């Protein structure tokens, strides 16, 4: 019975994935989604990957990191440099992505080991500093072309982003709903109790931080190879804040929330582009309103699950 449930939910998700892929394809060929919307879709996909990976660190494990843009820039520049070296060969994207992931893992380990002993505000400041260091380093390296940045060919389109969005979600959500994720949540809830349960809290904090960094780096690679230009200023502290806003807006600890909020905020940002003057004001006002009326974010800790839905159906049938 239980085993049945697992396969049923997995199957349901598979249908959702294939269904949305086909739907987008149909909409594009029918002309409903034009070129501009396709660009927005890329932004949405990349933002979701950034948001869920940061949510793993902040919402699930409770470690307040402000250095996410730093890992994004590692992925972006690794890909950028390798694409340049390989003259824009299609495979350079994936080689660049892999290099970015490896560098991110190493950097995340170096950053995490001392800083994750810090708590709350201190950790935020330490990771903020780390993000800025990465930016300055990139700004002063020859290979990254300094402040001018790199101009790259567009090498990927939405199906690639879609595939990586699916992979990121599966990996991060499966991690969260396992013994590892439970340990991470216990660290967030009560570190002392968690240690007393035999959990090496530092290990799990580092683990969440590294997994988060890997996917931020992947998002960076996707960004670099779909938006033509990368400059150090794109990955400044502001970018980390943008990602944080998506996570908080959607609800810390809710991946469904990150999806919804990345979608809403990206659409909002784009649709306000014609009101450039007052864009930031409207955007800021909306955020203030959300924080007043839904301080826990749009969805709080709610998570959409097919298993819950099936349980409901099952109960209804029993009643009848």
């Amino acid at each position, binding site marked *: 019975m239980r085993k049945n449930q697992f396969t049923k939910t997995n199957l349901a998700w598979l249908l959702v994935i294939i269904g949305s892929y086909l739907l987008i394809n149909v909409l594009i060929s029918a002309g409903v989604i034009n070129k501009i919307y396709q660009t927005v879709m890329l932004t949405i996909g990349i933002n979701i990957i950034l948001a869920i990976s940061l949510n793993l660190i902040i919402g699930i494990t409770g470690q307040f990191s402000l250095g996410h843009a730093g890992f994004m820039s590692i992925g972006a520049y690794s890909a950028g440099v390798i694409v340049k070296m390989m003259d824009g060969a299609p495979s350079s994207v994936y080689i660049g992505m892999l290099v970015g992931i490896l560098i991110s893992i190493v950097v995340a380990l170096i950053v995490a080991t001392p800083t994750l002993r810090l708590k709350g505000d201190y950790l935020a400041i330490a990771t903020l500093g780390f993000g800025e260091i990465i930016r300055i380093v990139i700004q002063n390296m020859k290979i990254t072309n300094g402040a001018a940045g790199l101009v790259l060919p567009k090498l990927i389109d939405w199906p690639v982003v879609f595939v990586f969005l699916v992979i990121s979600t599966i990996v991060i959500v499966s991690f969260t709903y396992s*013994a*590892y994720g*439970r340990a991470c949540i216990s660290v967030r809830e009560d570190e002392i*109790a968690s240690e007393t349960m*035999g*959990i090496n809290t530092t290990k799990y904090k580092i683990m969440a931080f590294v997994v988060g960094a890997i996917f931020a780096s992947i998002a960076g690679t996707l960004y670099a190879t779909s938006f033509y230009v990368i400059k150090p200023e794109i990955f400044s502290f502001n970018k980390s804040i943008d990602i944080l806003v998506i996570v908080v807006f959607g609800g810390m600890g809710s991946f469904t929330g990150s999806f919804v909020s990345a979608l809403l905020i990206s659409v909002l940002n784009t649709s306000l582009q014609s009101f450039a003057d007052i864009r930031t004001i409207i955007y800021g006002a909306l955020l203030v309103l959300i924080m007043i009326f839904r301080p826990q974010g749009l969805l709080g800790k709610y998570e959409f699950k097919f298993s819950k839905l099936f349980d409901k159906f099952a109960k209804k049938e029993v009643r009848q």
Partner: protein
Amino acid sequence: MIVLQTKNLTRNFGGLAAVSNVSLEIKKNELVGLIGPNGAGKTTLFNLLTGVYEPSEGTIELLVDGNLKSIGGLKPYTITNFGIGRTFQNIRLFKELTVLDNIKVGMNQNINYGVLTAIFRFPKYYSEEKRVHEEALKLLEVVNLVDKKDELAKNLPYGEQRKLEIARALATNPRVLFLDEPAAGMNPIETQELTDLIRKIKDDFNLTIILIEHDMSLVMNVCERIYVLDYGKLIASGDPDSIKNNKKVIEAYLGED
């Protein structure tokens, strides 16, 4: 057989010796009480024994695989994995997790699958999760909380939160269990239930139990031996009757006349 012993255990906070020169010997399957007035250093002693604080001086030794092993100053998670479990005076459940998941966190060290198995959901993930699920339910049965398995821990009434903490401590598979004021805030009926529960888990799980408690009826009722702390020092030890009539203990609680 001695399971746990301390020698001249001391912990200073600045100039204050919260625990000073405490030497204890706990034997296998004993049920020992630790009492003393407020601020006597009982919880500090628990925190030393479970690794939350490092001792300033003295040694703590635990029986591991037949030998006494020094555990003073080790990290709490290492000590837990050597077989010490505990509950907290000011309930420290994982509030946003369900009752069942709280237990599963306790069993975490006992789950055998790697990160990749978790991520790619290999069959081992499902078989291990199934085992963990069933074992967790069994532990909830012990404390009568099976009906509430899907509630968030924070939504349980106070008495049940205390019971859940005990079950969660059992989930770490301890040989020695520390209970820090398990009956605090319970009414007499709940306290009676708790007394039965403590006796039951001691036998069923083959435990050595050390408990801090202010409810004297509970202490005198279940404990085979009692240690009394006052101002960080051990002032008396012995069976309940001798403690009841000990002059120093009466002085510590009521003051000199």
